[in-house]
């Protein structure tokens, strides 16, 4: 099966910023991403879990965004502008995709 090189960018971000990150990604010219729910985690600000949250103020969400290699910088710039003063983690992985015309 014919596959094409792409980048898989995964961003974990605090829930109140979820919609803003989605808007920023789209504003950066990237239309494809998926948001996964997060149950809990741990980081420099300690451990937390979804069930200890009274509001969405405390939760997090995980973005998965598959992009062509040449677009990854635009995406990271957009994400970083938002994330710099917020809680969050970004990772980039090499991947292969089917149907490259979609990305």
């Amino acid at each position: 099966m014919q596959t094409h090189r792409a980048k898989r960018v995964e961003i974990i971000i605090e829930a109140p910023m979820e919609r803003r990150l989605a808007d920023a990604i789209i504003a950066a010219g990237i239309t494809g991403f998926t948001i996964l729910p997060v149950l809990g985690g741990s980081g420099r600000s300690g451990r937390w879990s979804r069930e200890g949250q009274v509001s969405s103020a405390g939760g997090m969400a995980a973005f998965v965004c598959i992009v062509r290699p040449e677009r990854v910088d635009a995406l990271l710039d957009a994400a970083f502008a938002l994330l710099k003063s917020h809680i969050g983690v970004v990772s980039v992985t090499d991947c292969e995709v089917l149907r490259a015309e979609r990305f």
Partner: protein
Amino acid sequence: MGDIIDIMSANLISPIILSFVLGVAAALARSSLSVPEAIAKGLSIYLLFAIGFKGGAAVSSHGADSTLVLALIAGMVLSFLIPIVAYGLLRSMTRLPPVDAAAVAGHYGSISIVTFVSATAILTARGLQSEGYMVAVAAAMEAPAILTALWLAARSGSGGRMDSELWREVLLNGSIVLLLGAFVIGLVTGEQGLKDIESFVVNPFKGVLCLFLLDMGLVAGRGLRQARGLLGAGAVAFAILMPLVGAALTLPVALLLGLSTGGVALFMTLAASASYIAVPAAMRVALPEANPSIYLTLSLGITFPFNLSLGIPLYLAAATWAHGV
């Protein structure tokens, strides 16, 4: 005085408060007891809908008196001003940096709708009426304090950002829209509407509140466990003093407005309560530098239980006393 103790002890052994205590105890003992997030949200949707609807239906059957508008304005002014008092107290009682103090102050100017709901349940149990439009006052008091908090933060150099998008989020947050929307539905459908859905919004109300407070207790208890050591004695003292200050500032205002005893007690409760839903979410966006553990622990871990157990009976006793004078 005997009266206060009477109200307090009746309150302390009600299923409502004991459910909260059970939640706190379970969390502190690290029990696996937990309420799924969706259920907690479902319970709060029920409570907001029911309390808003009943408020609207009450206004519809008793008529809105002219103090409605004045009460709304008074509520907004208090929400604007209380954070300034809170900020002053915080800066003198604690060593919190300005940005954290500003964020905390914003929470105390705003309100906690669950505290309000619990107060109405306590009033109902004692057979006290109150003005149905107090739910509208509650909604009006939610947002102004956020502005004051951002202004306090900006004054101290840490620029709070409040863009139009955040404005929309705050003013149209789910709780406010549901509370006010249900209020309007109750207002429009009136007695007939209340008859239609009475066995949904009235009868099981207290029981649902028990389960919701069980979850609040779990959350508060987990927060307290994690925040151990994070807060100094000054901050803890603030979280108990500040509701009393807020309530005391509101008492004369509420009396001037000519509210009923129940209405005065509810208004004091609103002022005394601290937000832990709308304001934290807004602060994460507008003041990300402020530490969320601090404001959540103070408002949810200390002030909420204080109001629930001792505060509300106290405000009710004060309202009764002031009305008798």
